[in-house]
């Protein structure tokens, strides 16, 4: 096995795993509060376009990431206004928000850059090798010569773990997702908590989209997120709503996505379209093998206050 092919594979695995990790870490917080945001895909595509346009306007990739986060947050705010504010069905609302996100980004992109889809030349998010760590044999370059957004994911996972499981704030958030009525009685503002948790998830999905545009593709294309928002939701299940495991699961999924590059580099003439389906098949297999042995937050996807039934 050529070592360069393996190194390229590991690098691509992490590069493709990072957007999944960022979106899934955000969604972990959202789901812990009792909200499942299927509109994550919409936040991610908005983040990709926001990232691209922000980077162009501000002339810096870092500015693009911030703009991407804002765009993802905005889309999540629309979702939260309906699903948390009005208490509409979370699945239908999320589907609508994804549909709207894909439509609006497509329309804005066509209006701004023309329908032909000329490739944009964006300020890209360049790899930032960390001295020392990036020289670790085998995995050093793959893990520590990545775009800064990767380091954000590495740092966010333990930080969120600590926040969720070791602070009163995290306890209140988790209680909201388990026993909303009891939490409210104990003085937690359930809807406000869920609203903020959803916004955080949207902002992280926006950063994930910006990473796709600025660190991976170097351009924006319509529908470029290609279902990664939905895969991220499966990653949350696989990671058992625990940020550390979510990060690990996301990197594994990045490996599945990168497998096609690896096989091409080895010169194997395999139909790559079938390998494109690998992350989705892996998600299905993971859900089949995992659900039943893990427990979702008890109040996940249930509107609160309960419709028609008081609190």
């Amino acid at each position, binding site marked *: 096995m050529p070592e360069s092919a393996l190194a390229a594979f590991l690098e691509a695995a992490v590069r493709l795993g990072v957007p999944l990790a960022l979106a899934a870490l955000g969604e972990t917080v959202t789901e812990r509060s009792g909200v*499942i945001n*299927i509109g994550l895909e919409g936040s991610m595509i908005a983040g990709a376009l926001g990232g691209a346009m922000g980077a162009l306007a501000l002339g810096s990739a870092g500015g693009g990431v911030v703009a991407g986060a804002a765009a993802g947050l905005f889309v999540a705010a*629309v979702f939260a206004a*309906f699903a948390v504010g*009005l*208490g*509409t*069905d*979370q*699945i*239908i*609302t999320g*589907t*609508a*928000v*994804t*549909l*709207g*996100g*894909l*439509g*609006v*980004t*497509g*329309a804005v*992109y*066509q*209006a701004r850059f023309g*329908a032909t889809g000329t490739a944009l030349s964006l300020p890209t998010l360049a790899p930032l090798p960390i001295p020392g760590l990036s020289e670790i044999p085998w995995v050093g370059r793959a893990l520590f010569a990545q775009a800064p957004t990767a380091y954000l994911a590495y740092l966010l996972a333990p930080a969120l773990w600590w926040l969720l499981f070791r602070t009163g704030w995290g306890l209140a958030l988790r209680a909201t997702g388990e026993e909303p009525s009891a939490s409210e009685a104990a003085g937690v503002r359930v809807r406000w908590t869920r609203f903020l948790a959803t916004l955080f998830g949207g902002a992280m999905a926006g950063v994930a989209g910006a990473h796709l545009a600025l660190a991976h593709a170097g351009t924006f294309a*319509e529908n470029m997120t*290609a*279902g990664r928002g*939905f*895969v991220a*939701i*499966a990653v949350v*299940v696989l990671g058992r709503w625990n940020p550390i495991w979510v990060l690990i699961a996301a990197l594994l999924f990045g490996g599945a996505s990168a497998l096609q590059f690896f096989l091409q580099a080895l010169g194997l003439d395999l*139909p790559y*379209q*079938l390998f*494109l*389906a690998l992350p*989705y*098949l892996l*998600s*299905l297999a993971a*859900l*089949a093998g995992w*659900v*039943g042995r893990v427990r*979702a937050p008890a109040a*996940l*996807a*249930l509107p609160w206050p*309960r*419709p*028609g*039934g008081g609190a």
Partner: protein
Amino acid sequence: MPEPGRARFVPLAVPAAALMVTALAAVAGLWAGGYDVGRAAGALVSGAFGSREAFLSVTLVRSVPLILTGLAVAVAFRAGVWNIGAEGQLYAGAIAATWVGLRGGSLPAGVLVPAVLGAAALAGAAWAFVPALMKLSLGVGEVITTILMNFVAIDLTAYAVRGPLQEARRVFPQTDPIAEVARLPTLPGVRLHLGFAVAVALALALWGVLKWTRAGFAIRAVGASPEAARVSGRIDASRVTWAAFLSSGALAGLAGGVQVAGVTWALYEGLSPGWGYTAIAVALLAGLHPGGVLLAGVLFGALEGGAGAMQRSAGIPAAWVSAVEALAILSVLAVDQARRRVRPAKRTATRSLGEVGDA
């Protein structure tokens, strides 16, 4: 995972109000984007309804896959099955229909056309079988699994048109045209094909099934309250879920088959501009009623048909249609929610049971 659906019919006032909200928001969006709203509306209407040709060759032709996938979503949601996978089931149906249509050229049309459409329906049901099995035997919620299956079907299509089903010259990522005897007959001089009649007949049939048959009652009962249906002891809820899931997949698969046999005569990537998702807007606007799906399907067919004219004459990107569809879904949800606040319902369980009877 979501609570099984409180799916039920909504009074006509809800879709009417939702449509008005959607139209207002869409106009506001166009105005804010600096487009000429009057010109856009004119182009939309004339592009969709302006002539016999526009209505029969554009609007109604585009409504066929929307009606069929809309019915697929409606039957699933009525039974409390969150099938977001109509898009993938449609592609599975399109692949199967293309395969049969390419191979069966020696058969008479009277055999081949039903075989093409039957294969499409079967393939759609087979695609729905995976998430149905995962739901019923492993307890995996169907929302994410049906969505994931969409992407698998799209990748499978990409593989089919570059691999086993690629056209003979092996240049373009598409199949050869299917045999002429496999194609659906059209009305003289326009593109409206037999698929429209199939869609209308299925909508009416489904309406009858839901309203008058025992199976329809079981679907409505399980959708309203699986717990109550189970406790009653007279309805096998898991059998109903299976039936609704598979017939939903079959309807969506048929949409793909009808599109290939009636319009494109070949399979290629991007065959569907997301009809499986638009179908959710169609079904919700229809209040999950098969008759309503017919109307909403034609309405969205007009929107998609007119969007082309809007792009040409007012420069409005065609992707705008998806945004309007999303607006329609959100409007239905918001209006329905507002209605409940104005007239607070009784407790959930009684309300659901009370509504099992009406259709």
